[in-house]
């Protein structure tokens, strides 16, 4: 093995005019990990991934994949599912998959058996001779996913793979991703939704405004913050949320609240102060969630940043329409 890292990005930058999309970003993706690449919309995730794929050329910096400098030939070993994705609407499903298999360097016979395997797995066999535009959006997403993984790539890069998927199909996708990880393949996926990362990833990289905020093993990151957080599911009185003796900050997720304890505050005493007034169904002393970690470092939550970027996008589009 040439290197223990599947992907190495060193000091990579990309500017579009006055706008800096990616600023001196470095990251390492260890072999065989599920790597979460996260940040709010517009943070520079897609540009970074496009640079990794040699689709956008970096202004400066260095990218190494599987121990080699990225070349066109290496694309064969990478399965890439872009965020902006679609298929040729008038081609048949089978035809489409064969075409992508061949373009990725597969032999026709090999591609055909893989196509059958994946269509069976995705429960789309009876759609093989149908045209792509007769498929539902969810089915088309599954076909796109098959084009990404059909040639058994060592490295799989998925840009916002869950966006637009219904919960059932999102689950199917999640299981397949976990299977790949068990097979020892490396998976990088980007998302702006923290809870997906917390469930799936062992390594993460957080970026905001073109810059890396934080990266490393998820477990170690969380351990670094210590068990200073309490998650509570409750009914009744909620005055404990703003109890200045214990609580530094809180975040209400609807079904539960996440409370950050003041330094030195004892969770046992907090629990004792609550039991008389509140019915508690869950009380867990834990590490802070990624959302909280992000908020602590950046000062704003991912949701707030997403909303801000949304506004900026809309302003831009309405300017263009004028």
């Amino acid at each position: 093995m040439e290197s223990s890292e599947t992907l190495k990005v060193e000091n990579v930058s990309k500017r579009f005019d006055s706008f800096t999309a990616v600023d001196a970003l470095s990251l390492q993706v260890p072999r065989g990990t599920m790597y979460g690449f996260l940040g709010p919309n517009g943070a520079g995730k897609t540009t970074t991934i496009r640079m990794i794929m040699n689709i956008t050329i970096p202004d400066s910096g260095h990218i190494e994949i599987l121990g080699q400098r990225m070349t066109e030939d290496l694309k064969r070993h990478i399965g890439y599912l872009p965020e902006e994705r679609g298929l040729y609407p008038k081609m048949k499903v089978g035809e489409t998959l064969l075409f992508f298999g061949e373009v990725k360097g597969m032999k026709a016979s090999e591609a055909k058996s893989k196509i059958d395997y994946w269509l069976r797995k995705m429960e789309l066999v009876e759609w093989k001779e149908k045209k792509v535009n007769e498929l539902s959006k969810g089915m088309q997403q599954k076909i796109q996913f098959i084009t990404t993984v059909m040639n058994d790539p060592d490295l799989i890069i998925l840009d916002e793979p869950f966006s637009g998927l219904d919960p059932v199909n999102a689950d199917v996708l999640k299981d397949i991703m976990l299977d790949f990880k068990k097979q020892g393949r490396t998976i990088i996926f980007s998302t702006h939704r923290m809870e997906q990362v917390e469930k799936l990833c062992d390594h993460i990289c957080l970026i905001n405004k073109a810059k890396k905020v934080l990266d490393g093993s998820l477990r170690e990151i969380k351990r670094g913050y210590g068990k200073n957080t309490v998650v509570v599911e409750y009914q009744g009185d909620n005055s404990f949320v703003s109890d200045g003796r214990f609580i530094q900050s809180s975040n209400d997720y609807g079904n539960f609240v996440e409370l950050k304890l003041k330094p030195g505050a004892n969770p046992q005493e907090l629990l004792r102060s609550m039991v008389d007034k509140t019915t508690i169904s869950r009380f867990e002393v834990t590490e802070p969630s990624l959302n909280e970690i992000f908020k602590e470092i950046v000062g704003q939550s991912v949701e707030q940043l997403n909303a801000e970027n949304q506004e900026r996008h809309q302003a831009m589009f309405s300017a263009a329409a004028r």
Partner: protein
Amino acid sequence: MKKIFYIIKREYLQRVRSKLFLVGTILTPLLLVGIIFISIKFSTMKTSVQHNIALIDLSGQVAQPFAGAFTDKLDDGKPQYNFQFINENRPLEQIQGELSKRVMSRQLDGYMVFSKNVLEDGKAEYHARNVADLTERAIYSQTLSNLITNLRLRKEGLDPAKIEGLTRKARVTMLKISESGDKEERGQTFGVSYVLMMILYTTILMYGITVMRSVIEEKTSRVVEIMLSAVRPTELMAGKIIGVSLVAMTQYLIWAAAGTLIFGYGLAAASSVLPNAAGYLPKIPPYVFVYFVVFFLLGFLLYATLYAAIGAMVNNDQEAQQVQMPVTMLIVVPIIMVGLVIRTPDSPTVVALSMVPFFAPILMFMRITIQTPPWTQIVACIALMLATIGLLIWLSAKIYRVGILMYGKRPSLPELMRWLRYS
């Protein structure tokens, strides 16, 4: 490089199998055959309607020979023209009044009045319901003219047959001297060149736009980045352009085969009427077709790269309509100048214009068919085109690379300049 083959294959098969191609390729020649077939049928078909015409001859000398000049028969063997001679000693107005009534009641198609001094003044009138038929007017005028000329000559004691022999018109045959030394007739050949030029113009425009549409399709269906996960943008662009050019070549082949068939049929049909029909056929030297293919490929490559870049710049067909205008104008301009090329194929202006790579496919091809220019000019022209194509591919590939991933606002010119730096 194997990847590009699959891109070409997909582009080619998708287009050749489409209904549009079927309609454009198969139906066009069929329609042509149909039109030619029907027009031949019509031209050889005799009208089955008999013309009833009354003749009033105030001079008393021309009615009989005039009627005798019409010998055409209908399908059923009856004469096509049926003349009635009116010889009554009544006032002219009265006779005309009665005849007009018969014309109106459709017993007669019309009547003709020859003036008293028709031999001297050549005056005659034709009264009918329909006097708009130009062929009929020409037939009557011509017949009467010939008739009274002959009568006048006889009166002077001259033999009309001898006069005709003495006044036979001269005919100038056009022969062309070319560098290879062969002489060919140019008149009919020119017609074919003109048609070839129009096909060249139409197909370059049509297939250039096909490339543009194809790029837009990939953008709007968002398939383009999935493609880029496996291939270079330049490979995608090149594969597309080559694929579409092969579609055009396929169409040409089908048309050439169909054209040969139509020609054969036309020749056979014409031979039944004109024994020497083959002699009237245009003789097109084979090199014209070679140049046709060469200039199509060069012209297509040049414009297809431009159209590919435009496709990458825009988001939909409506936007493309506006942006493509200047490029389309570049193809249309030489069509306007064709008249100039025909009149003065070797004037400095025409030579200079035909060397401009954007005009060369039409103008240089036209010059070659009219008055083949020196080979140095042809070689220089092709070299210039190749250099321009190289430059355009380089530029377009850069625009394409950035543009296919840009959604939203269409770039302004300065933005486009910056795109060139991004890639």
